[in-house]
């Protein structure tokens, strides 16, 4: 099978997600690399038929294929493995396999189909009973079976979109072996990932996307330094005034051994003082966000923030801003004024709307929020929603936990947000934030945690690091 992608372009309003992408593949495992927002997922969606491009064509074996229909793409032999398994938890493996299967009247030939599946399972070393319920398997196993299913239905090109984010090492090994075998059988594989260690392990060639364009084609042997520099070209940054303050109050972080990559490490930063900004760096799909949330809700792991006497802080001392603003952080049908009522009347029984209105007006002015008090949150732009979340911070001392504070914001809005965040940086505040943007991590952190997958690879003062080192850590390279 030979697939040619010619001049694919796609815009969403002002944003040009894909610009004239041209690419040819006829075998092997091909990596698709790029920073967050480089256009990888748009390209994947176009190839798999979930989106139609504005212009351009895809030619498979000399034929121009129809775009924009998932059904057509499947017919043309294109299969997509999503990050979350697109299967059916309550059904058995066999049943899940059968949904949408490329066979006429499958139940009549059920024994033949079962045999075919088991043959494939054997070839790819999968040892699972067909009657097992899907939700009793690990994600790794489910994805493996999904791969086999795509193969069964005649996929000649399989795209994997960040498939290994939730995998354990064993599961990864399993999937990689399967992928190699598939490739040997002639299946073209496009492997979209940030994780350079994995890409180096199984890919033979690759394309680097940046700002919607395909800027570089690479091939084995891979030059990691060059690739990193192409991917993460760092931007000019507007220097914000950093305050150097008397740092007095301290706090501790107790780490659970299972969160650290080097379980026996003793040389990482142990003393944290209020006034520090701690940046948790990680690639998209890593657990950096989860660590931030964990400090608030203590659900994910045993890693904890404690005060200098070893006791936990009260929950009211934390301010947590989730990355999914509307889904987890705000109330989409409440208006702006009501949010301020919620945030600033915590211990009061009665709401004094006059005072709340005044507070709200002040906040709106201070945080430059473009909205009326009676607009519901769903009507605001992403940037404004973020500013609202920031403005809902309590005025008393807090530990700020910010998940991707500038996600989806343009350069200027992002800068403004940081100005507002840093204004809180004084003796009484600790700021922890997660980000997938190395420049942001570099610019604002005093201490940097580097996370790859679900492990903390490194914890160092910024002065002891370089951007390249951080990138290496978060890409899983050691």
């Amino acid at each position: 099978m030979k697939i040619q992608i010619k001049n694919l372009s796609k815009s969403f309003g002002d944003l040009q997600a894909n610009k004239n992408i041209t690419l040819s593949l006829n075998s092997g495992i091909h990596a698709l690399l790029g920073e967050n927002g480089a256009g990888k997922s748009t390209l994947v969606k176009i190839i798999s038929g979930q989106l139609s491009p504005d212009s351009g064509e895809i030619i498979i074996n000399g034929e121009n294929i129809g775009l924009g229909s998932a059904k057509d793409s499947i017919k043309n032999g294109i299969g997509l493995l999503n990050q979350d398994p697109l299967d059916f938890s309550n059904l058995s493996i066999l049943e899940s396999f059968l949904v949408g299967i490329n066979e006429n009247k499958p139940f009549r030939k059920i024994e033949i189909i079962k045999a075919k599946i088991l043959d494939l399972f054997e070839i790819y070393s999968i040892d699972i009973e067909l009657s097992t319920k899907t939700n009793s398997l690990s994600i790794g196993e489910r994805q493996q079976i999904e791969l086999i299913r795509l193969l069964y239905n005649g996929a000649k090109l399989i795209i994997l979109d960040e498939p290994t984010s939730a995998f354990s090492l064993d599961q990864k090994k399993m999937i990689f072996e399967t992928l190699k075998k598939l490739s040997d059988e002639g299946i073209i594989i496009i492997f979209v990932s940030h994780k350079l260690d994995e890409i180096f392990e199984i890919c033979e060639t690759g394309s680097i996307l940046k700002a919607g364009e395909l800027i570089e084609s690479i091939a084995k042997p891979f030059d990691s330094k060059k690739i990193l520099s192409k991917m993460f070209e760092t931007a000019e940054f507007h220097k914000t005034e950093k305050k150097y303050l008397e740092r007095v109050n301290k706090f501790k972080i107790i780490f659970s051994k299972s969160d650290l990559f080097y379980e026996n490490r003793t040389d990482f930063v142990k003393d944290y003082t209020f006034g520090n900004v701690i940046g948790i760096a990680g690639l998209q799909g890593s657990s950096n966000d989860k660590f931030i949330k964990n400090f608030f809700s203590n659900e994910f792991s045993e890693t904890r923030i404690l005060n200098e006497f070893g006791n936990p802080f009260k929950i009211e001392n934390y301010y947590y801003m989730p990355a999914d603003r509307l889904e987890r952080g705000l109330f989409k049908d409440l208006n702006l004024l009501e949010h301020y009522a919620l945030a600033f009347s915590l211990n009061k029984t009665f709401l004094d709307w006059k005072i709340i209105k005044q507070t709200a007006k002040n906040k709106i002015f201070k945080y430059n929020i473009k909205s009326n008090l009676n607009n519901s949150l769903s009507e605001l732009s992403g940037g404004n929603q973020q500013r609202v979340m920031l403005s809902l911070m309590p005025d008393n001392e807090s530990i700020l936990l910010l998940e991707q504070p500038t996600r989806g914001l343009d350069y200027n809005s992002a800068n403004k947000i940081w100005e507002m965040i840093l204004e809180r940086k004084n003796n009484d505040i600790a700021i922890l934030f997660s980000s997938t943007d190395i420049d942001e991590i570099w610019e604002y952190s005093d201490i940097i945690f580097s996370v790859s997958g679900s492990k903390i690879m490194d914890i160092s003062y910024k002065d002891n690091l370089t951007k390249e080192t951080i990138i290496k850590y978060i890409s899983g390279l050691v």
Partner: protein
Amino acid sequence: MIFFENTLVTVISLSTPLVIAVIGETISEKSGVINLSAEGTIMICALFGFVFGYITDIAIVGFLFAFFLGAGIAIFISYCDIKLRMDQIAVGFVLTVFLSHLSNYIGQDYVRLNGPMITKIQIPLLSKIPFLGNVLFNHSFITYISILLIPTAWFFLNKTTLGLSIRSAGENPLAANSRGIDVKKMRFIGTVIGGSLLGLAGATFSLYTKYGWSEGHTTNYGWIILAIAIFGGWNPYRAAAGAYSFGLLQVLAIKAQSVTLALSQILPLLPFPIMIFVLIFIQYINTKDARYVPRVIVSLIVGNQPEALGKKLPEEIK
């Protein structure tokens, strides 16, 4: 022994409409839609089943009309659910009130009337078998249908492509969609099959088990069907078992009437607290490790709720 045999016959006969209805609701819920109008649908289909049976003096006509009326109501619900993207619970609830009152209104002229009777059909040879012959092969045609529906529904859901597609739509509409399944169509089909069977069950009440029509003729049976469907864990066999259990309780209630007035009023209402207890138990088993509960009981109790049940279609599916 004779007493036991007779009781069994009565239970199977009396549970006929319940079995039909609960299997219909199970299929509907497998596709993701709760038909909260069950109470109203059953009532109005009981009325119209009787009316058309009475007018034509042919029972089958009544059954057929009720079947199609049930389908029609389900089509309306499906329209509100799929096209208008309304809350299926709200629509179902309002429809229940509407259809219940409508039944009473239209039905006024049809109370205390005698319609066509349906007779028991003895299956030759098989009905002569001692005990089993009487219990299984000496019933009306609609009871036979109800019994046959059980394995048919199971087969349909688990061994046919359509059944599997319907189930996939009720489990994970987005995944089904990505595999080329027409999720809207599947949901529609599941809802309509469910509604038709509810309609058929309604006619079974007025033309067979609770003969004739009266005000509020089938009151509360619709609600009980919804409960038994959960009790049945979305499995036709278990659902039927639940229906028969409820029927048994009813038979006991009738017999107990001679004993105490109080008990006979309360027994028919027992299924509900039982159901709540079972639901809590199910949740307990699902959320905790439940090491204390033997595996056998766990596998009997745990039901697989279709993950998309009661939810609106995801916006991504146009």
